[in-house]
């Protein structure tokens, strides 16, 4: 594994890039303030990042914010889908994050039991 491999990725991925630059279909934002990190937000973020990689979700962007959420419901995650209202999830963990990827991000059905 070395940086040369990135050249191959560059050739392979070039075609998705234009699409992605226009507008990502889904944005996932994980709250990564001090209380979020202490509550395990990094593992939640890692799960989203990992799933996007594994499932090759080229139109999904995962990011994080240091802004404070509701400390009592950390880790918190917001999912923005194009042309739909944002869904906020609370008390997240890696297992719940996987379900949000499958049910909400891939299939378009928000997981109402995790929403706050």
């Amino acid at each position, binding site marked *: 594994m070395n940086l040369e491999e990135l050249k191959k990725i*560059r050739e392979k991925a070039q075609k998705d*890039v234009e699409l992605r630059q226009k507008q990502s279909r889904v944005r996932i934002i994980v709250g990564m303030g001090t209380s979020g990190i202490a509550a395990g937000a990094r593992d939640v*973020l890692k799960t989203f*990042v990992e799933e996007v*990689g594994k499932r090759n*979700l080229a139109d999904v962007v995962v990011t994080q914010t*240091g802004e404070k959420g509701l400390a009592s419901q950390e880790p918190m995650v917001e999912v923005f889908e194009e042309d739909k209202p944002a869904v906020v999830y609370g008390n997240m963990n890696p297992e719940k994050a996987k379900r949000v990827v499958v049910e909400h991000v891939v299939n378009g059905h928000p997981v109402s039991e995790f929403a706050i």
Partner: protein
Amino acid sequence: MMEDIASHIMDIVMNSITARARHISVTIEKDPDAHRLTLAIADDGVGMDRETAQKVQDPFFSTKTGRKVGLGIPLLKGTAETTGGSFALQSERGLGTSIGAAFDTDHPDLPPLGNLKDTFLVLIVSHPDVDFTFRCRLDGKDFSLATKDLKNELGDVPLNHPEVIGFLTKYLDEQL
């Protein structure tokens, strides 16, 4: 409370990102002869004036009076100082902030390193526009990664592309 050093890094780097840094470097080194672990995080964000730089180190500086930086700085300072180490923060408005912490590796309260791989991975992928430089010297193993080098190879393909995430996951697993 932060359970490990990697979580402290995550928290301090999030302050840098909130301060709109474009370049962030993280260096972590263990010196077995001196029984010391040192952590340095430097950014080119908006920086702070002297008074603010003092205040953010104080855990009792209230969040209700417009505190923009979390409790992360006093937590790291507390961890470093209770483990017989030291803490320093330097900041200048418009230039950036650098934070250094040292820990005594023999101290029983020294937190574990935690998962540096995941910490670096999620930082790179969730802030592809920031240039990160990570350097680790731990147990005789040297690791260094500058995301600028990755960007040079990738051209228009962003660091948060699924293929690149796959690459980074394996790369960090192998190298770190």
